[in-house]
C-alpha cells in the first residue's frame, strides 16, 4: 500500500442537515449502516421505504446514511475503493460493498438482550439458543455476555418447556396444535384445535394467538392456562395481511371501562402498575384508576387484591358485580 489518503480527493458530499442521526448518536448510525449495507446486498433493489423500516429509521435518515456512505472506503481511496450504494427509482442497490456483505457478530448486549427475552419465554430449545447466541459474540466479549445475561431477568416461562417447545415448533412449521386449556369463562378445561399464528405478550402475560377453526375466528389463549399441547400433522396456510391487520389479543371492551377508587396507602402502588391508567387524583391522596382494554373481571380482582383499600365505583353494573364477588368470597370464610 503506497498511495496515501491525502493523494486521493474524497467524493463530494451533501452538507449535513440539522438533527441528522450522526449528531444524535454516531455509534447508532454505524450499527445501522453495518446492517443496511449487507441487507441491501442481499435484497438488490429494495425500496427505500422498506429498507428504512427494516433499519428502524426514517426515509430521510436512511438517505442521509447513504449520502454519508459516499465518503466511506479504504485506502488507497481509488474510485473502486469506496462503498457504492445508490438509489435509482426509489430503490436501493449496492455496486461495491467493500467486504460489508454480512453484518458483524452480535455485540454482547445485543446477544444478552435476546437471550434474556428467550429465557423468559422458554421452551425446550432455550439453552441451545442461548449457547448459539453466546458463540456468535466475538470471543473477547463472551465473558461480558455471561455477566450481562445474569443481570437481566425478564420473567419466568409461562408454561412447561415441553408445551412451549411444541408450540414454537408448530409456529415455525405452521402445523395445527391440539391444546388442553383452562377456559376462564367456563371454569373448566377444554380441548381445542388451533392454528398457531404466533405467541404474544401483554401486561406480563403470554398468549397463544391463532385461528380456532371450529369457531372460525382468531383467538388468544393464555399460555399459563395451557396444560398440554400436541403438534398435529395438519398444516395451515400463513394468515393473510388482512387477518393480521385485524389481530387483537383482547376483544374491544363494551361500554365504559371499570373505574376503581384506591385509598392513599395503595395509591402509589396502583398508579405504577402496568396497564392501569390514572383517571384522577382526589383529596386525601386517593386516586381513581381504570384498565383500558382489560376485562372487567380482571379489574375487579385487581381491586380486591388491594386488601380493602380499593373499591369499584363505576359503572353501576360493575359495582354490583364487584359487590357480588366480595359477598361470594366472604362466604368462603363463613
Amino acid at each position, binding site marked *: 500500500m503506497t498511495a496515501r489518503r491525502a493523494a486521493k480527493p474524497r467524493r463530494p458530499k451533501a452538507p449535513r442537515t440539522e438533527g441528522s442521526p450522526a449528531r444524535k448518536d454516531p455509534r447508532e448510525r454505524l450499527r445501522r449502516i453495518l446492517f443496511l449495507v449487507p441487507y441491501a446486498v442481499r435484497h438488490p433493489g429494495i425500496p427505500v421505504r422498506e429498507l428504512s423500516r427494516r433499519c428502524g429509521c426514517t426515509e430521510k435518515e436512511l438517505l442521509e446514511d447513504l449520502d454519508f456512505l459516499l465518503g466511506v472506503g479504504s485506502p488507497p481511496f481509488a474510485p473502486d475503493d469506496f462503498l457504492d450504494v445508490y438509489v435509482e427509482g426509489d430503490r436501493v442497490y449496492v455496486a461495491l460493498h467493500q467486504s460489508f456483505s454480512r453484518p458483524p457478530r*452480535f455485540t454482547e448486549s445485543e446477544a444478552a438482550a435476546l437471550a434474556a427475552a428467550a429465557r423468559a419465554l422458554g421452551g425446550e430449545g432455550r439453552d441451545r439458543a442461548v449457547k448459539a447466541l453466546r458463540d456468535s459474540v466475538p470471543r473477547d466479549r463472551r465473558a461480558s455476555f455471561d455477566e450481562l445475561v445474569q443481570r437481566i431477568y425478564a420473567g419466568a416461562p409461562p408454561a412447561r418447556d415441553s408445551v412451549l417447545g411444541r408450540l414454537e415448533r408448530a409456529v415455525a412449521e405452521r402445523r395445527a396444535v391440539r391444546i388442553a386449556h383452562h377456559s376462564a369463562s367456563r371454569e373448566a378445561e377444554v380441548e381445542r384445535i388451533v392454528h398457531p399464528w404466533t405467541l404474544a405478550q401483554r401486561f406480563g402475560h403470554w398468549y397463544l394467538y391463532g385461528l380456532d377453526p371450529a369457531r372460525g375466528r382468531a383467538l388468544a389463549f393464555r399460555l*399459563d392456562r395451557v396444560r398440554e399441547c400436541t403438534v398435529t400433522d395438519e398444516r395451515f396456510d400463513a394468515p393473510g395481511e388482512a387477518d393480521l391487520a385485524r389481530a387483537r389479543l383482547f376483544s374491544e371492551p363494551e361500554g365504559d371501562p371499570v373505574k376503581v377508587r384506591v385509598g392513599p396507602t395503595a395509591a402509589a402502588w396502583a398508579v405504577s402498575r402496568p396497564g392501569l391508567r390514572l383517571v384522577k387524583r382526589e383529596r386525601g391522596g386517593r386516586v381513581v384508576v381504570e384498565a383500558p382494554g382489560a376485562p372487567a373481571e380482571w379489574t375487579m380482582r385487581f381491586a380486591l387484591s388491594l386488601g380493602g383499600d380499593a373499591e369499584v365505583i363505576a359503572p353501576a353494573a360493575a359495582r354490583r358485580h364487584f359487590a357480588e364477588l*366480595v359477598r361470594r368470597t366472604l362466604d368462603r370464610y363463613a
Partner: protein
Amino acid sequence: MQKDQRLLDLAALLLKAAEPVSWREIQEQFRDDYAGRGEAAIRKFERDKADLLELGIPVRWVAGDEDLPAGYLIEKDEFYLPDLKLPPEDLALLYVAGSAALANGTFPYARDLAHALNKLSFAARAPGASEAAAAATRQLSSTDGAEGHEAIAARVEELSRAMAHKKRVHLVYLGAERRERTERDVDPYGLFQQGGAWYAVGWCHMRKAIRTFHLARVESLAVNPAAPRTPDFASRKDFHLADHATRETWEYAHHPPVRCRVRLHAPLSTEVVASFGGRAKVEEEGGGAVVEVEATNAEGLLRHVLGLGDRAEVLAPRDLRARARDVLGRLAKGLA
C-alpha cells in the same frame, strides 16, 4: 475526519487486507487522524479499536513470523455473523421472544435488541414462518401510546448502560406505602421484570443494603458522569438476581417466617396454582388443592389470595384468616 467515517474506513481497510497491516502503514493511510510518534496517536487508535469491538468488530494484533508481517487485522471468521444453525423451533423462540420484548416498549438494551432481531435474518438459513410470526407478535404485543411508558423505557435503558459499565446512579425515589421521597446513590446490579413491571436491584448507599426499586416510582435518575469508562463498583460474587426476581410478595422480609395454608377451590387452573411460585407445596384435594407457603410478609399473601376472589381462601394461620374475613366484611358493608 469524523469519527464514524474513520471507524468504517479502518474496518474496510483491515477487512480487505490480505495480511496484517502494520501500525506505520495505518498511520500513513490515516495521516490526519493518527499522526505523530507520541502516545496520543496510539491511544486514539486504541479507543477506535475499542469502539469497533463494541460494534461487534474485533481488531487483532498479530505478532509477525516468517510467513506474515506483524500488524493489525480483522479475521473474517471472527467478524461476520455466523449462521446460528438452530432448528426452526429455536429460531421461532428467538424471533417471538425478542419481538414481544421489543414491542412491550420497556426492555433492557432495547436498541441492541432491535439490532439483534435485524441481524437474526442473517443468522438463520430460512427464518420464513418465524419472521412472519414475529411481525404478528410485534403488532399484538405493542404498547404504543401507553401512559408513562416512554419514561420507564428511558430509565430501563439508562440503568442497562450503567449496569454494563458498572456506574453508580443517583435516584430520586418515591416509596410506595410510606409515600416518602428519598434521594440515594445506588450501584445497579440487575434488572428484573415481574407482572409486566420492571425493577432494579442494587446496593443502596443510603440503606447500606441491597434494595429493590420499582422503576415506575423512580422520579429521576442520573448516571455518574465522571470517568465513564472506569467502573464505580465491582461485581459481587454472592449476588444472584434470581433470589430477588423470583421472590413473591409474601417473601419480603417483614416479620419472622410463618407457615400459611391456602385452599384453592375446584376447578383448579394451572394459572392459579402457578401464581404461588415454585417454592409452594401443593396438594391436590377433591378437584381443588391446598397450597402451603412460608410467609415473611403475610399481608402480601393475603392480598394475593384476595385477588383470586372466591377461587381461594386463607386456611391458616387463624389470625390471617380472621383478617381476610374482616377486610371482606368491611368491603361488603361499604358496598351494601
